């Protein structure tokens, strides 16, 4: 019986418990983390259950909130596209939670901890909700829930965080409003807010100009939220100055959920025949993606701040996903969906490593990483795994999504996009080997042979296990996702791609 309720349990459990955390934290701060953990575990369990149910059922499962039939009631839908993303969100947020304990103790005043965890859980609620909902307006509300909590927890970061959080508020609101306008236009012409219903109603109206305007607003709104190239300006500042746990939570999840919404929008609300054939949306997205990747590569090369470099990397990764969408064929879209999941793990890996380094050294400048490999060997090992994955070295997962993206661009005969993809992985290699070199190698004179000759003795000073274990699990996840990407595609993602491809 409970198995029918999985779609709603995914969202409602963390929603309720987030307020519970607030109350309980008032009495005793030690109970915050266990409660959040329970909430997210229930979400994870439900998400896995939902995935299983979808695979067993062989298609989307609809859940009507309050038993109001759509299109009037709000509907939650689980299908092949969103269940793997739900599982990934819940899994990563649990790991980040475990990671956060010590890091937050260090970076925040103690009195703020319950509030922090409240917002943490609310944010995850919002993200899970965005992914699971089947109602365009409900998506807006959940998007804003996720955004508010993001604004607030970014704002409590280091110097500069408040200002960048304010900028994020402005940009985020423009994005959300643009999305809402898009919903409004579609509502005017169809009178419906349900995604599945819109999908049925819209094809007759494809030549209406209102639909086109709505689509354009949608793209701008979602584009801002997911931080694609021309709309990315809020992101580097916000994620750099946020507390390290917060960037470890938001950077992997928020932008990727935006990418998910983009795919939903183009291929569930609209049909590929509209968004690809009737208007050159794919073409435009492709050019934006190419420009974004090039821009992100150049900007990332210019950064000496580790987290800031990663932020530009996200802009680039978003470009990859857009390339997958823009190649508009089965292979490309498979790559895009796979990349959403893979990139969650990769970015979680990189940002937790940045957080761990911050925790121990209080410094993120990559030119001051010397001797770090003696101090924190495990952290750096995890970093290497993440780095190789972003560069695209098999068997890490980053390679496999890139492989499908490349195949997609070849099939679509978009050679420039292909070139950009290949070139950007080279730039990524430069980016990461720059860090690896600084952290691992200890430049010395020509004739120093003595063991440890002439170097300060730096002993092992690794972060606590509560931070190491999540990092190691993410690293293991990266490798496993890579090796078993074929299984994931065969059983899940190939059904998530629209049938008309």
């Amino acid at each position: 019986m409970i198995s029918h309720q999985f779609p709603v349990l995914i969202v409602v459990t963390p929603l309720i418990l987030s307020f519970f955390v607030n109350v309980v934290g008032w009495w005793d701060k030690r109970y915050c983390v266990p409660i959040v953990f329970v909430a997210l575990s229930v979400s994870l369990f439900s998400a896995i259950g939902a995935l299983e149910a979808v695979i067993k059922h062989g298609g989307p499962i609809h859940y009507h909130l309050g038993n109001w039939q759509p299109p009037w009631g709000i509907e939650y839908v689980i299908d092949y596209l969103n269940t793997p993303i739900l599982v990934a969100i819940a899994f990563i947020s649990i790991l980040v939670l475990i990671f956060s304990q010590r890091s937050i103790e260090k970076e925040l005043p103690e009195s703020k901890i319950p509030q922090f965890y409240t917002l943490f859980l609310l944010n995850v609620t919002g993200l899970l909700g965005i992914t699971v909902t089947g109602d365009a307006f409900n998506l807006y509300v959940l998007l804003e829930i996720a955004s508010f909590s993001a604004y607030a927890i970014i704002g409590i970061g280091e110097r500069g965080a408040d200002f960048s959080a304010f900028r994020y508020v402005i940009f985020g609101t423009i994005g959300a409003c643009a999305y809402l306008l898009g919903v409004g236009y579609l509502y005017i012409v169809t009178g419906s807010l349900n995604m599945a219903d819109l999908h049925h109603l819209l094809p007759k109206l494809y030549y209406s100009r209102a639909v086109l305007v709505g689509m354009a607003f949608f793209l701008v709104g979602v584009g801002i939220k997911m931080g694609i190239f021309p709309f990315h300006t809020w992101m580097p500042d916000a994620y750099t100055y946020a507390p390290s746990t917060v960037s470890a939570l938001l950077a992997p999840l928020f932008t990727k959920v935006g990418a998910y919404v983009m795919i939903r929008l183009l291929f569930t609300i609209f049909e590929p025949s509209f968004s690809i054939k009737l208007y050159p949306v794919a073409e435009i997205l492709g050019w934006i993606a190419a420009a974004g990747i090039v821009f992100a590569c150049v900007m990332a090369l210019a950064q000496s701040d580790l987290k800031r470099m990663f932020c530009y990397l996200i802009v680039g990764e978003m470009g990859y996903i857009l390339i997958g969408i823009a190649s508009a064929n089965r292979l490309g879209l498979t790559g895009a969906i796979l990349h959403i999941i893979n990139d969650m793990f990769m970015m979680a890996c990189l940002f937790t490593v940045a957080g761990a380094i911050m925790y121990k050294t209080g410094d993120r400048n990559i030119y001051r990483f010397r001797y770090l490999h003696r101090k924190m060997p495990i952290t750096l090992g995890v970093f290497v795994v993440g780095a190789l994955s972003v560069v695209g070295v098999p068997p890490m997962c980053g390679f496999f999504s890139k492989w499908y993206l490349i195949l997609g661009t070849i099939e679509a005969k978009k050679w420039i996009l292909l070139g950009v993809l290949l070139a950007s992985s080279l730039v990524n290699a430069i980016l990461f080997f720059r860090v690896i070199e600084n952290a691992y190698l200890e430049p010395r004179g020509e004739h120093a042979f003595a063991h440890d000759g002439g170097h300060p003795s730096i002993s092992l000073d690794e972060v606590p296990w509560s931070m190491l274990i999540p990092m190691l699990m993410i690293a293991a996840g990266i490798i496993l996702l890579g090796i078993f990407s074929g299984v994931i595609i065969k059983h899940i993602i190939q059904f998530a791609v629209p049938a008309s491809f």
Partner: protein
Amino acid sequence: METVHSATPLLAMLASLIGAFLILFTGERNRNLREFWTLAAAVIKFGLIASMLPYILHGKIVEYTIVEVYKGLFLQFRVDTFGMIFALLASFLWIVVSLYSIGYMRDLNEHAQTRYFFCFALAIFGAVGVALAGNLLTLYMFYEILTVATFALVAHKETPEAIKAGRKYLAYLLTGAAFVLFSMAVTYYLTGTLDFKPGGFVAGHGSREILSLVFVTFMIGFGSKAAIMPIHEWLPSAMIAPTPVSALLHAVAVVKAGVFCCLRVILYVFGPKVLSDLGLWIPLAFVVSFTVIVANIIALTQDHLKRRLAFSTINNLSIIILGAALVSHDGIRGAMLHIPFHGFMKITLFMCAGAIYVKTHKEFISEMEGIGKQMPITMAAFTIGALGLTGIPPVCGFISKWYLCLGALEAKEIIFLLVFLASALLDAAYFLPIIYGAFFKKPKFVKDHFDEASFFVVFPIVITAIGSIFFGLFPDAFMHFFKLAVASAKNIMGMGV
């Protein structure tokens, strides 16, 4: 061909992977244990690979599929005759080089030995993976692992030059990898498969232009690792690395993996028929012939021993590719034989250079006069290796060069026969002066007196030197390189011997 499904290839791969992590976790705390892991992993790995030899010799193929990636695309090990040659070579020489590195690193008291042994094991993991890979995707995976693991080895000394060499190495090889990725993706798009097939599988797919393009990008990609001439620059710079690493780079893992990949592409992806139909072999043959001659001439001018050896390597690698590019029966046989034989001879030479360096800290040929009297065993081994590379019987280099020349004759390409002969001549021109100087000249500084290096350093040198002669006399003994090469050539050309 009969296929045997067995997990042995996977186990062989895991042996070095697990070994690598055991080395990492043991660390500096217990050096003896760490080096025991190295040796144990090496021996187990060689044993496992050798255990597959009987199947291969009976014309069977050992296959193990890890997981399916996409339709018709697997992560898969498939051991055939050609892969077996390289796997045997790499895993056997790993034992030898491990022994040698233990002696070398301890004698020099090098820093960061754990990282060294860890990356070494990973590099062998990658190299053997390349050998056992059943398709291009798997091959690419191990190729990249090999590249990344070797970076740490090249930059091991951590001097500014070493770091620069490391960067250069990465720049060349990762760019090459991007080319490979591109060509691999196009190949998959055209044919829907990436599984190696003797004689190639691209025939009949795609237009002439696109196939030519893919072939060129493949050659640029893998050629960057095989140090074909315009993109060889990283190899001499990488000489800055410790000598066992150079030995590994040149003789066993890295460049050999590059050549191996080139041959895989030439013979198992495109195949002789497509190559000759499209006329692709002619430009390739000319490029590598150019490399052979120019590399030899540059080698003549080098005074730094390891750099001279490096250019000799570039020359020999191109010879191997040239043999395969001639698409003749004997040429392929010779090319395949030259991979292990050159490995044995070149590793001897490098280990000798290392032994001299350990004892005397001398790197330049002009300083080595008269050293033959002080380190007779080392220099005797050096002489064997050098003579072998010049192609003098009874050392094994003669046999492979003989078949390469026969291949050129079979293809009726006299110009390439001349290239082979010229290269042998030039080899002699830059190796013989070293030997002459070492044995017959008087040392410049009389007070310098050195003994042989320690047992761990000398013993591997002796083994490989004896091996070089042994394989010259009995090319089919022990590891059956000859039989394997003959069988591969037969499969590829699709006809009887």
